[in-house]
């Protein structure tokens, strides 16, 4: 499991988890779940096109996911946002279906693109993934405060000169870049579980932004490592484990929050020294 040919998988998967944890935190905060879902799924088209014309998959993924981000942003101005996202997504998938019908790719390879493949990572991919991942994290951290402000209080952010629409576009582009590097590991259909499961769990444990983000990265790392180990042992698709563990994280987070809420209610109901102040734990942003 830790032999030579698996080494690059572990390295790439770890980078992927860190990026997903950081970006995913903002996905959850901004409620951008649909966009975060649609961009990777649409990016699948890029991979299909790349294999058709014979260029590097990563380039195809990057171009398609950027096109998806810009398309959602452009069509979103015309009407309802969720409708725009859905239409851009299916338009790209329809194109993907066309490319697939042209290519002579075997079914297992298409399957790997959609649902992930443990052995789908070669050593030459580490450098581009590391560069792209680093770029995503750096941009997110540079924009940490304005992004946080525009996510939580759009009006206040606007008053301070943070342009909501521009912030949205930048965020979608970062999301697209993160997508294109994550896709080969978890597959087009399940990156998204990695992006929202761990941050959602982290947010129910702490409401302070930075610790929540660090915790989200930590949980994402564990999810990815467990998924790869399990996929290696069973030969089942990585996507299955990522999707299931993502849901487990979310359920655990919800359970933890519910437990704490009940305890704080009980503490505040009790008279005496322990129940004096307001239950700080139940106050959340």
């Amino acid at each position, binding site marked *: 499991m830790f032999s030579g040919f698996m080494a690059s998988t572990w390295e790439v998967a770890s980078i992927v988890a860190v990026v997903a944890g950081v970006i995913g935190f903002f996905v959850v905060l901004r*409620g951008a779940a649909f966009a975060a879902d649609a961009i990777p799924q649409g990016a699948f088209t890029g991979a299909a096109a790349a294999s058709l014309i014979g260029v590097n998959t990563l380039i195809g993924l990057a171009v398609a996911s950027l096109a998806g981000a810009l398309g959602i942003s452009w069509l979103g101005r015309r*009407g309802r946002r969720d409708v725009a996202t859905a*239409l851009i997504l*299916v338009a790209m998938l329809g194109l993907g279906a066309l490319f697939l*019908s042209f290519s002579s790719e075997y079914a297992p390879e*298409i399957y790997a693109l959609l649902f992930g493949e443990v052995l789908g990572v070669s050593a030459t991919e580490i450098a581009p993934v590391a560069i792209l991942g680093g770029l995503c994290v750096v941009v997110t951290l540079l924009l940490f405060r304005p992004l946080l402000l525009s996510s939580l209080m759009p009006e206040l952010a606007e008053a301070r000169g943070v342009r909501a629409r521009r912030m949205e576009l930048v965020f979608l582009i970062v999301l697209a870049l993160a997508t294109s590097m994550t896709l080969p590991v978890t597959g087009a259909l399940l990156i998204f579980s990695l992006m929202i499961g761990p941050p959602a769990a982290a947010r129910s444990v702490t409401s302070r932004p930075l610790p929540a983000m660090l915790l989200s990265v930590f949980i994402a790392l564990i999810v990815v490592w467990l998924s790869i180990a399990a996929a290696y042992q069973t030969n089942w698709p990585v996507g299955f484990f990522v*999707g299931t563990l993502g849901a487990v994280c979310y359920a655990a987070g919800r359970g933890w929050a519910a437990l704490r809420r009940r305890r704080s209610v009980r503490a505040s109901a009790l008279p005496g020294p322990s129940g004096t102040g307001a239950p700080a734990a139940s106050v959340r942003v």
Partner: protein
Amino acid sequence: MTHLLHLIVEPGFFSNAPVRSALLAGGIVAVVSGIVGSFAVLRGQSYAGHALADISVAGGSASFLAGVSPLWGFAGVGVLAAGVMDMIGVQRPSGRDLATGIVRGAGLGLGALFLYFDTTHTSTTGATITILFGSLFTISSSLIPVIAAFSLPALGIVLVLYRPLLLSSAAAELAAARGTSVRLVGAACLIAIALTVSLSALTIGAILSTALLIGPAATGLRLTSRPGLAMAWAALIGLAATWLGVLLAYDSFYWGSARHGWPVSFFVVTLILVFYLLSPRPVRRVPD
């Protein structure tokens, strides 16, 4: 005259049995999708519709393992997932997308596993493509009554609950004050969406069925602000896109020399997008 007709419609289009089944099945599904989809768009449940479509992959792939028609799997798992989504609070606007996404991830993960079993334990290597991208031309005529039977409950739910659904979509508080159980109506609507999506998963594929659900409905709602009329438009646009898609896919066998047909789903989805882009901006501003 015949020659001119053959320029548009390649010979044998109307006498071909798979084409007739495709036109009939696709037509039924398009009409149901347009009507039910209008509620999905009005209620802002595009994402829920998309997630249900993705989740139904698990059902489709499981039914390949069991050796029954994928429709049963699509519909069974879709309705089940709609129940789970409703249970964990998809109705509440805050965190709604998050809960939807989590259910979708878990469901699709299961779908990945079943597809893996399909391709390794049975000889159906084409299952992945069939389930995800659909194949309207392979629908046998014996399946059409089943499709019609599945359409009835989906249409029935939205027609019986027409007024409470509209009211609770537009003004939930008002509906609740009038004694409508907003929660129950919402759950019923979600089930209707699940049934509809499972039907379109059969015709244009699980991950593309969002197109039939959302595209024509969104276009219809841009054309008029009257809900009933918008639904009629949506059904008509869906029908036009599906039938034109079938025609173009049939014709595409004769394009070039390769004798290689382009997928129906590609044409249907592209036509739906074109219709949406061509539709004029709504007169009344639609609140985001």
